[in-house]
């Protein structure tokens, strides 16, 4: 069935709450109003009651921490951190508490908590509401990080996130909510750590994360018009990362462009480039190209924000550079 990412997430929350009574949803405005600004949790309170769809005060430390504590003791909370930027408010609960439980307690504890959060620029909302930050999260052992780029992946990965037993941060790019695709009906679960081949090709690999997978596919279409066959790979989960899937593609194409909307230092683009340089050196016919945002905060003004976010033409240019090497 054709649906948007927004609808797929809403549907999956409905399905998982119906399937398992231990699943609860909590966060700011998840029950009130229209299910948040984007209506992601719309209909849940009517269906499952406000005891399981819980409006919280504006207290991110308590939201994330309590979701972790509830997960530690038998519930399977899906907590909403409205924007990933608010990680700044609640980082201790995630970094020093939730992420550590399983290991630090010698394997006795599991923490099946999902933290859904919005990422990304494109809405002109400025430095404190537009960041990506997933590289920071992926750098923390003890947290899994997921960033779907289409509705089918959103459904399958969210179902897996809720059903598996470890903490997951589920990153939803706000500029992708309305993008539609066919979504399998019924039970649909995607295991973590498997990249998806978005477009098959043989001349160059474009590896795009989150929204950048969509832009990479557009770049591939433009390159095709020039007779270049680009393969587009979406890792889908950043931790665990499907290094093998990316390497397999590079083995075939010999060239790699990694596209990441985050800042370049210590980014996922750097991580993927390092992995391919280390394990796929023999495959490479050209230097790996990283296309990222610049090393600056996200400016509010739309004209600079447009410069900030990697564009299709940036990707095409990087691909041509690798091909012309």
């Amino acid at each position, binding site marked *: 069935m054709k649906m948007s990412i927004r609808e797929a997430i809403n549907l999956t929350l409905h399905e998982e709450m119906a399937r398992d009574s231990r699943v609860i949803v909590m966060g*700011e*405005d998840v029950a*009130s*109003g*229209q299910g948040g*600004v984007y209506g992601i949790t719309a209909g849940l309170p009517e269906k499952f009651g406000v005891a399981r769809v819980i*409006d919280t*005060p*504006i*207290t991110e*430390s*308590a939201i994330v921490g309590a979701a972790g504590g509830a997960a530690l003791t038998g519930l399977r909370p899906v907590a909403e951190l409205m924007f990933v*930027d*608010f990680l*700044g*408010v609640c980082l201790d609960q995630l970094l020093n508490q939730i992420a550590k439980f399983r290991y630090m307690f010698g394997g006795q504890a599991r923490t099946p908590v999902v933290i859904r959060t919005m990422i990304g620029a494109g809405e*002109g*909302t*400025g*430095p*404190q*509401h537009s960041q990506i930050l997933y590289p920071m999260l992926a750098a923390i052992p003890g947290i899994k990080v997921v960033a779907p780029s289409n509705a089918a992946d959103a459904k399958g990965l969210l179902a897996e996130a809720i059903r598996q037993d470890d903490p997951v941060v589920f990153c939803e790019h706000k500029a992708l909510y309305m993008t539609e695709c066919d979504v399998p009906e019924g039970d649909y679960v995607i295991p973590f750590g498997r990249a998806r081949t978005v477009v098959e090709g043989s001349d160059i690999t474009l590896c795009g994360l989150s929204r950048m997978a969509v832009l990479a596919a557009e770049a591939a279409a433009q390159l095709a018009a020039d007779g270049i066959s680009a393969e587009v790979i979406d890792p889908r989960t950043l931790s665990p990362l499907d290094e093998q899937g990316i390497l397999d593609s590079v083995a075939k194409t010999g060239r790699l462009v990694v596209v990441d909307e985050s800042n*370049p*230092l210590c980014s996922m683009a750097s991580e993927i480039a390092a992995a391919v340089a280390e394990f796929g050196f023999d495959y490479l016919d050209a230097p790996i190209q990283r296309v990222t945002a*610049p*090393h*600056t*905060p996200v*400016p*509010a*003004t*739309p*004209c*600079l924000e447009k*410069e*900030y976010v990697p564009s299709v033409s940036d990707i095409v240019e990087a691909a041509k550079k690798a091909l012309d090497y």
Partner: protein
Amino acid sequence: MYRNQEAIAVGACLDMTSDDYIASTHRGHGHCIAKGCELEGMMLELACKEDGLCNGKGGSMHIADMSKGMLGANAIVGGGPPIAAGAALTAKTLGTGGVSMAFIGDGASDQGTVAEALNLAVVLELPMIFMYENNFYAEFTRNPKPEGRIAERAGSFGMPSVVVDGSDFFAVHRACREAIERGRSGGGPTAIEAVSARYYGHFEGDPQAYRDEAELREQREAGDPLPRFLADERASVLDAARVADIDAEIFAELDRTVELALAAADPTPDKLYTDVYVSYEGRAMQ
């Protein structure tokens, strides 16, 4: 955006100078004007233009003017109070006699950062005012706390706290004058809960379906601070003609600055790389 809460910012900032500080919120436009930010720079920033107060990089939720002691609107709910505490520490350490005020929504009042700032202000005896704006809503969620609970909570940290009618300019001003004097004379922090009603929805086009229509209508009318101000005998120096003149003057200035802002230049692309600690522009990294 700030409609019907104007008496709070005006009453709060009237006795402050540019050497006093405020830390604002996401609902900051009124605070900016009351603290003396030039309308022109503000409008240009709202329109994200090159010559805006923050060169268009901050936009609506981050308007700041250091020269006026306006330490920034803030898109992080609860982000301001610790910053304001730091500014109060500067005033105290340097002995400037300045005070610092944090504006805090009813929703923000729950944030841990606010509790930590309250405690710090008491422990360090800071010249600080916690100016709560209780409009009973946080986005689409009604604040379940009864009126006065916020002031009570702040008071429990060990500082004087009062509840005032946020639509009554004179009441707000009296409370703030006392708090500012207390701060300037070394008497430490004060908390003020100003009660008002949010006029518009949380975002442009929010139909506010979650609010009772009759109640909202009633609150909109009763909450307008201007008729109440004008009806007060202390405002009697202003006759109707003078009020009309002031209105005309303000509307003309608003029209002028809005027009100017809309026509102003966008920042040039190279501005993306200015005001960073390390510029990677043109380097391999970039």
